[in-house]
């Protein structure tokens, strides 16, 4: 009997103990410390006591200078540590990707080994022996090659860890910090800052210049000016995320201390509140990993907690827009501020997963709120949280300004995009759709635009608005979507109804929503679910053939109620249901033994 030597199973590629997301957290913490130290160092370098004279003044200046010099050593050491951590994270991401490939191959090889072993065991004669020997030989070659590549992976992993430890050990004493500070190769942060400031507003130029910098120069700028780097349109998303997380960590530490010391100003209080909202929202997704890189799925692309009258500016992406095949950016509407981040991220994730599940390539989904959305409570004018910003809602100023900022952000995404040009979709909801509309009219460089629950668009037709494909989601029982001028009138303060047949957009199916007065505003916030979500995902993933449509308003089959009709009918429906419920309740309680019978 012939013996066939089938290779043994390939052992598993070891699990990564040092992970990309762990390295990210290390880098974030080191950067936050570096940012804080640089803030103090800058303060120490600038303090003076002009009223003092003579020996006292000399002693003060000498002490302040020595303090600043010592901090400079710490600053230089931290810069090297941050640079080393950043390199470590990059190497771990590459190791993660290699491990993914090795593991998939291992499963295939082992499955083929099992298949061959089963067939050999089932053979009743020697007729297939030559075939079995050839297959066994090929499997042995595959298995041996895979084992060797796994061994190489292990060595590379060990080298990455050893290099990080060596780098950190190289700056873990005061003397080494001083040495690092005196290094003639140390980045000239002042010159780099001047250049960075000069290139703001030119995202393509900024992207090109940033790519010429060394890692050490990029990290030095990031920790010196995290607000500049983190919010610079055109810089890579991962670098913006690093800077913004460092700024977030710094704000939380510093302002929490000031709060505990009773020194918080009103403006700082708002910043701390916004920082806390962002921290909490990110915490909800801390366990979500980008399967491509092993790093955190969420990226903080914009972090400006003190902007927009204290409402703050924020943008967070799931996935990396610089590398994804399909990118969407969604803009929320009325009353949105940093405190709304959590709820809006849940909607963004729902869209992200739905688009990913289309199976048309990699996806990144950005939630963007970096404009001054009108504030207040449209339902309850007596809400102590604030009166409705009627001017902001009724007039288009904030939408136009928001559209301009949004345009800058999209230009930035186009500039930092790597590889093939991404398929990019802008999504605007409610007042945010009007802001997106103004951006589209200014030439927003997107491929598709989705307008949902829109109170109005600045042009009468989609063709006048943009060259991109315009998709419209408007529930007929969403009162906000009935504000635009259209087939049957409309207030029109913010423009034209994009669901109107004459607008010429692609109106996708959303359903009408509930017809009860207390549910009308719920309809307005329901576009990121059900059929509407499915259709948005089809568009975002470039799968337009799967979109289901409904007739435009005013087209055959596109009958709808005007706003006043909707309010009347829905109120009647609510009262009617209530009458039925009330009548039923009374009937039960008017019987003998019920509460109403004396």
């Amino acid at each position: 009997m012939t013996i066939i030597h089938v290779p043994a199973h390939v052992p598993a590629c070891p699990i990564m103990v040092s992970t990309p997301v762990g390295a990210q957290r290390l880098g974030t913490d080191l950067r936050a410390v570096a940012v804080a130290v640089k803030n103090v160092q800058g303060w120490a370098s600038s303090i003076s006591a002009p009223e003092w004279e003579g020996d006292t003044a000399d002693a003060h200046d000498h002490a302040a200078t020595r303090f600043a010099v010592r901090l400079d050593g710490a600053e230089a050491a931290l810069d090297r540590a941050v640079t080393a951590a950043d390199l470590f994270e990059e190497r771990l991401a590459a190791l993660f990707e290699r491990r993914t490939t090795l593991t998939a191959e291992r499963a295939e090889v082992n499955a083929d080994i099992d298949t061959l072993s089963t067939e050999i065991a089932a053979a009743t004669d020697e007729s297939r022996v030559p075939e079995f020997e050839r297959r066994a030989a090929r499997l042995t070659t595959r298995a041996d090659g895979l084992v060797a590549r796994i061994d190489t992976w292990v060595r590379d992993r060990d080298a990455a860890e050893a290099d990080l430890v060596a780098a950190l050990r190289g700056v873990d004493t005061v003397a080494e910090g001083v040495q690092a500070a005196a290094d003639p190769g140390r980045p000239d942060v002042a010159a780099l800052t001047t250049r960075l400031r000069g290139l703001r507003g030119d995202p393509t130029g900024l992207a090109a210049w940033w790519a010429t910098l060394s890692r050490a120069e990029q990290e030095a700028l990031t920790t010196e000016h995290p607000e500049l780097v983190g919010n610079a349109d055109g810089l890579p998303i991962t670098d913006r995320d690093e800077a913004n997380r460092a700024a977030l960590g710094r704000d939380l530490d510093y302002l929490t201390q000031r709060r505990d010391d009773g020194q918080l100003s009103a403006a700082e209080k708002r910043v701390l509140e916004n920082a806390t909202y962002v921290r909490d929202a990110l915490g909800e997704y801390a366990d979500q990993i980008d399967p491509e890189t092993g790093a955190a799925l969420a990226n903080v692309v914009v972090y400006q907690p003190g902007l927009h009258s204290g409402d703050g500016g924020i943008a967070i992406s799931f996935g990396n827009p610089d590398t994804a095949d399909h990118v969407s950016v969604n803009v929320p509407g009325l009353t949105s501020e940093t405190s709304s981040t959590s709820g809006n991220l849940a909607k963004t994730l729902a869209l992200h997963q739905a688009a990913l599940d289309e199976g048309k390539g990699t996806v990144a989904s950005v939630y963007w709120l970096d404009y001054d959305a009108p504030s207040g409570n449209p339902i309850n004018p007596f809400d102590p949280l604030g009166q409705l910003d009627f001017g902001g809602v009724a007039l288009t100023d904030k939408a136009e300004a928001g559209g301009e900022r949004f345009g800058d952000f999209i230009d930035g995404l186009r500039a930092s995009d790597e590889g093939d040009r991404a398929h990019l979709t802008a999504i605007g909801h409610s007042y945010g759709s009007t802001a997106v509309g103004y951006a589209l009219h200014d030439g927003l460089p997107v491929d598709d635009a989705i307008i949902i629950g829109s109170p109005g668009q600045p042009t009468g037709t989609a063709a006048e608005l943009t060259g991109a494909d315009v998709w419209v989601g408007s529930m007929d029982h969403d009162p906000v979507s009935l504000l635009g001028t259209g087939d049957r009138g409309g207030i029109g303060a913010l423009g034209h109804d994009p669901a109107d047949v004459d607008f010429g957009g692609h109106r996708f199916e959303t359903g009408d929503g509930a017809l009860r007065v207390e549910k009308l505003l719920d309809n307005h916030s329901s576009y990121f679910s059900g059929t509407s979500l499915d259709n948005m995902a089809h568009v975002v993933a470039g799968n337009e053939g799967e979109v289901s449509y409904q007739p435009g308003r005013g087209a055959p089959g596109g009958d709808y109620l005007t706003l006043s009709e909707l309010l009347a009918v829905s109120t009647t429906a609510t009262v009617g249901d209530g009458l039925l419920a009330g009548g039923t309740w009374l009937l039960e309680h008017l019987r003998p033994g019920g509460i109403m019978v004396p």
Partner: protein
Amino acid sequence: MMRALGTVPLTLLLALGLGGCGGNDDDSRQAVEDAVRQADETIDGVVHQVAAALHLAGAQGSRSFTICGESYAPRGVVMQNFLRFTASGELTQENAFVATVGLLRDDGWTVDDPANRVSVVGTKGPLTLRVEIHPTLVQVGVTAPCIETSDDIAEEYADRPTADLTWSS
């Protein structure tokens, strides 16, 4: 007669009251707690079965709540449970997907697109279960997309901090 007349304004009040509200707090809280219980049963049940079948390890997860709607009309609560696992590739990708679809269906989940090779998505009651399978990483989401509640209950749950999920081996 007087009693009949008196019931008219009462009926109208009841009409507006019973027809107009987003639910009372007790019913709302019960709805959320029911969804939480179902999520726990899902994690302790079919998610554990998937983890065993796919030879997963290193479970880490969290639970959070947020509002479904807008600040001025919260509508209800979104419950999100996320878990991630490391995988060593004992199964091929194809076998992992097929096994997961089978386990979900056996547990009563409706899987609309069993051929999807990005993730396995099942629905049962108010919950959506999503299993995203990669050679070295499996991520699971057990989500209630929107449990309709009163505004007070929506805000109460949304104010809760994100909590770690316990994984029993």
